[in-house]
């Protein structure tokens, strides 16, 4: 690995070790562009990475970051946000990490409308562990752990997060970087729990859902063909899984974020709260 770390606002870390042609490159490029558009510098926000090919981006972006355990990036991100509500927090994780190992956390993070942005690299396969099925693998997909084809149907991350209370859910494609940049910027700017499910071909282990496969199916949502504020319409769109696949903002709504309800944070972020407290008033009830 060639160390060429800099702390310039270009966010560049090591050169990626992903396979040539990997969809991660597109997401990486989109993220860096989005951060610039958002006016971020590497110290002004935090990224929590999951474990997987996508999580390896921790070394390819140079940003204040927490490289978590597999599946656990969401609770880390929630804790960071509660501790420092002023710090933008972004999660970068894969489909296996967020929809498999950490699936329970996704449900509850959405319910809480925690003000974090989750960018999921959805390649429908486990890359880093050399090609087993992901929860997003299409039924019947043959892989090392399911040689006769996966029996389960694929998870529906958009329907799941919309139904569990996420307030911004979008779908992007690593083969369309400009569109993805806009989605990431909107997701980060959204006040509340935002999830961008990014379709990403795995050129090494998934020969079914290729760039070509997606290009034949994707179409873009716009004001003309979709109203993202309507949850029923959003859920209908979420059911378009294999025939036509919608890209864009599927659902967007407003409700108070988790930290809005914490009066402990009314006057200052938690990290600035004074530590020494007069214990007398806490002790009185025990006398």
């Amino acid at each position, binding site marked *: 690995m060639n*160390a060429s770390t800099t702390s310039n606002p270009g966010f560049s870390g090591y050169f990626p070790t992903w396979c040539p042609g990997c969809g991660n490159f597109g997401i990486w490029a989109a993220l860096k562009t989005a951060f610039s558009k958002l006016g971020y510098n590497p110290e002004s926000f*935090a990224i929590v990475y999951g474990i997987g090919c996508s999580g390896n981006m921790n070394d390819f972006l140079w940003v*204040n970051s927490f490289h978590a355990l597999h599946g656990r990036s969401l609770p*880390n991100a929630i804790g*960071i946000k509660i501790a420092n509500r002023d710090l933008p927090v972004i999660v970068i994780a894969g489909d296996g990490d967020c929809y498999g190992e950490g699936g329970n956390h996704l449900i*509850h993070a959405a319910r809480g409308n925690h003000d974090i942005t989750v960018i999921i690299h959805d390649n429908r396969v486990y890359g880093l562990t050399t090609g087993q099925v992901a929860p997003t693998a299409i039924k019947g997909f043959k892989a090392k752990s399911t040689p006769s084809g996966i029996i389960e149907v694929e998870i529906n991350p958009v329907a799941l997060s919309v139904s569990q209370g996420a307030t911004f859910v979008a779908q992007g494609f690593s083969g369309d970087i400009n569109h993805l940049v806009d989605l990431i910027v909107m997701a980060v700017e959204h006040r509340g729990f935002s999830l961008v499910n990014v379709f990403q071909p795995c050129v090494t282990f998934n020969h079914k859902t290729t760039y070509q496969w997606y290009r034949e199916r994707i179409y873009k949502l716009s004001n003309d063909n979709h109203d993202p504020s309507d949850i029923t319409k959003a859920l209908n769109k979420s059911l378009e899984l294999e025939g036509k696949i919608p890209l864009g903002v599927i659902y967007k709504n407003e409700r108070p974020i988790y930290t809005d309800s914490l009066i402990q944070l009314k006057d200052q972020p*938690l990290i600035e709260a004074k530590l020494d407290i007069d214990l007398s008033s*806490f002790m009185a009830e025990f006398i």
Partner: protein
Amino acid sequence: MTTGLFLGKIATRSGYHAFEYSEYPSLIRGGHNIIEVRISDEKVFSQEKKVDVLVCLNEETYILHKEEVKENGMVVIDQEKIDMTKYRNLVKKFTYVNLPFNKIIKDNGLATVMINNIALGALTYLLGAEISILKSLISEQFARKGEEIINKNIKGVQLGYESVKKSNSDGYHIKIPKTKEVIPQMYISGNEIIGLGSVAAGCKFYAAYPMTPSSALLHYLASKGEKAGMVVKHAEDEISVINMALGASWAGVRSMVGTSGGGFALMVESVSLAGITETPIVVIMGQRPGPATGMPTWTEQGDLLFVLHAGHGEFPKILLAPGDIEEAFKLTIEAFNLADIYQTPVILLGDKYLQEGHQSIEYSRIKNYEFKIDRGKLLKREELDKIKDYKRYLITDDGISPRALPGMKGSLHQVNSYEHIEDGHTTEDAQQRSKQVDKRNRKTETFLKNHTRLPVLYGDKTAPLTIISWGSMKGPVLQAMKEWNGKFNLLHFTYIWPLPQKELTEMLKGLNKTLLIENNSTAQLGQLLKMVTGIELENNKLLKYSGRPIYPEEVLEKVKEMKI
């Protein structure tokens, strides 16, 4: 439960010491519940087998506990409802006091729950305590519920008081009149004082998933969170609990989690994460009998070695085990300092016995306890400004690297669950790996140099026998010592890990005969001490793992058996 609390507070507000032990089954309501309150003009360290006064709210209590009443003891029971003639041949030299709960409730149109107040009123009379103390306790407890509720409760108390005054005007032969000078005391549970300690230590984030015996800590902190400026989060599972806390800690706030063995088992992977990312965290690990769901509402010290070894890979970890509520307060505060200083997990081993029981403690001992909040090498703004190229995992002599917080200018770094180089980037380089392992391990050496505390010896130094124990079993041994001072002393461990090999070996070698006392079946402290010192301590041991704590009587019996 409030009944036991009130009785304890009647004692402390009258100038006495008190200790509470409770037993209840893992049911929402009902089942057989007991609360034992010991009151003394000397410090009370534990429960005992024999009781002075047995108050039976039902017949089952009498059947189950009559053998525990002392000779010349007293049994308070509703003889109008319960036919006591069938027990006539069992009657020892007890005084029976008829307290017709059921009739009193019926005649006065009271709610059934008033049975507790009737009992408290009766006890107040029988023990010669001042009823005004009980009345003010009720007024304070129900202050928010209004006059009507307060008056109803006081009526129950008054009826119980008057009833036994009529039937048994002499009362019990030992009384607790209010003393001339009452020194203010707190009567507080282990969970509450750990909560108080965390507030004092500046903990600002507590996450938990309910689990006995640590649920009451969650309840306490949740009720005080807004006042203490602490965010208290009941998360979806224990994995989320510890990871939220690690996130909050990385961002800069003192963070704590609380659980029991099963929940801690779920947290273990992230204890390891705290180790490699060098993120401070305090874990309150309330032991209860396992394996698996075990006996949820009972007590055991069965998780010492599990917790000691928790977390894959090698990383420093600090284990503390308070012996009583005063130590629980102080060690909670210290746990936060140690977590910040060593940037590693600090685990406080409690148990049901310590965390759910109430103990009296002089108010001033807590109020005047002096401590410093020490955040270790957490960099202040001006300190970070002086660092040109900040490295989160800088190799240092003491193994501890300066810590900057995300969001600070000049803080650019990553914390990494993968092995990493000094700036946090992932590495698989052999040399870099070894350097970081060595760096982390040096924290243990630094701890041993700067923070080691050897076990404390209680009692007569020249005694022919030394009892070795740890954590909450301190109480029963000290209580036993009151009976038999001079025969044995107690070497008590609160600092469980890391242990200083040389000093400890010397200390153990200097002992006469030893007796290991633990509330588990495999002598886990004994195993640990053997591992560290090579000294076999398991020749004489008293182990109990029935879900009940060790009683002072059992300590004395064992000592007697050893024919010292």
